[in-house]
């Protein structure tokens, strides 16, 4: 599966192109993962790596593979079904008003947490507002409601930086 290139989503069109790659896959909700949420079993949910997930007994497709003991790696590498807790840090994205880097935690192939590793804007006031302009995933951002707002209307550069860093982290996780 080829990866969507990580490009700066300078326009709405560019942003759509980046995300469109993921949304083309039926049933694969990019960020549906919350503990306890219902969903398809891990093998079929968010993985974009098109792993054959051949069973040890061998499916019809596996018959053509070599049977040499040494070749077992050829399947095991491609069938790394996400399991356990894994984390990846996305791209460090510089944007007009600051810098953003996200850490994504996945459990069993589902996103369970997205946290900023670097989240700076070039002045204190920017920082305050950025906390809300970013998609409201981080409860910390919502709890620090000094501006006392629950959301922001209007597209923001911040959210583009967010998507960009997030995408890089997801690619590292193969989600």
């Amino acid at each position, binding site marked *: 599966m080829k990866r969507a290139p990580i490009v700066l989503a300078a326009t709405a069109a560019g942003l759509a192109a980046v995300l469109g790659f993921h949304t083309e896959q039926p049933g694969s909700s*990019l*960020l549906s993962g919350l503990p306890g949420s219902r969903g398809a079993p891990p093998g079929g949910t968010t993985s974009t790596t098109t792993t054959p997930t051949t069973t040890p007994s061998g499916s019809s497709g596996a018959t053509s593979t070599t049977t040499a003991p040494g070749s077992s790696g050829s399947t095991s590498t491609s069938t790394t079904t996400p399991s356990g807790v894994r984390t990846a840090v996305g791209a460090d994205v510089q944007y007009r008003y600051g810098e953003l880097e996200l850490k994504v935690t996945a459990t069993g192939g589902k996103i369970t947490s997205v946290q900023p590793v670097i989240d700076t804007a070039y002045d204190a006031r920017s920082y305050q*507002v950025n906390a809300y302009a970013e998609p409201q995933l981080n409860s910390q951002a919502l709890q620090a409601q000094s501006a006392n707002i629950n*959301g922001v*209307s209007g597209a923001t550069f911040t959210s583009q930086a967010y998507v960009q860093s997030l995408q890089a982290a997801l690619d590292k996780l193969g989600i």
Partner: protein
Amino acid sequence: MTSTSGEAGPGTGTEGALRRIHAVMGTIVSFDVRVGEAALDKAHVALSRACAQLDRADAVFSTWKPNSPMSLLRRNEISIDNVPAEITEVLGLCGLARDLSGGWFDPWTMPGGLDPTGLVKGWAADRALNELRVAGVRAAMVSAGGDLATFGGPEHGLCWRIGVRDPWAGDRLACVVESPGAVATSGCYERGEHVIDPYTGRAETRCKSATVTGPELWLADALATALLVAGSEGLSFIEEQDGYEGYVIEKGGAVSATASFPFAP
């Protein structure tokens, strides 16, 4: 419940708050759900249904996916009689929005042909929010890339407070509104969207940013786009719609709004 999903909302005592983000339709959609008396697992199911509504809308309406029904229709590869029911519904709403906006919102005049994208996002967010409403949660807010649909409030007796982005600086707010159900902002930002003037066919707008509030996001979204193109004179067609209010920031910085625009105190 652990990590991001089940934390209690700020100042809400023991009430559960669920948050989720979902990348779809070329943007990020985020949910903030205050569960109230509803069962937490029921709220989770409703959130999944809400995301499924968005995915379905994307699959049907995407103009980026060459084989979506909308793309097929745009290329005249299927007839209007054979499209999914959602397309028939949305095109009906597009016609309504066109009439209500005095023609300033017109998906039939887009350069690449019929393109209802400007209404679909809000329409899909309305449907997603409805999944949460019928599930019995106390309050919820969905933000579809900066256009928001809400019901209830973050705490009992409070409204959802939504900041409107300063069009010249993504890190500042132009004003704060109390959501009456939907808040949509169209902006002509530095690198931003290109909005087509239906009367000239060119990408030009008469103001810098336009916000429309009202009971439903599909119409608020379409009217915000219309208002951006029409400029402050367009506030007259907003005023004519019961429950809808408008707020305009002109290119020179002048601000105007309809009489009852819900500025937060």
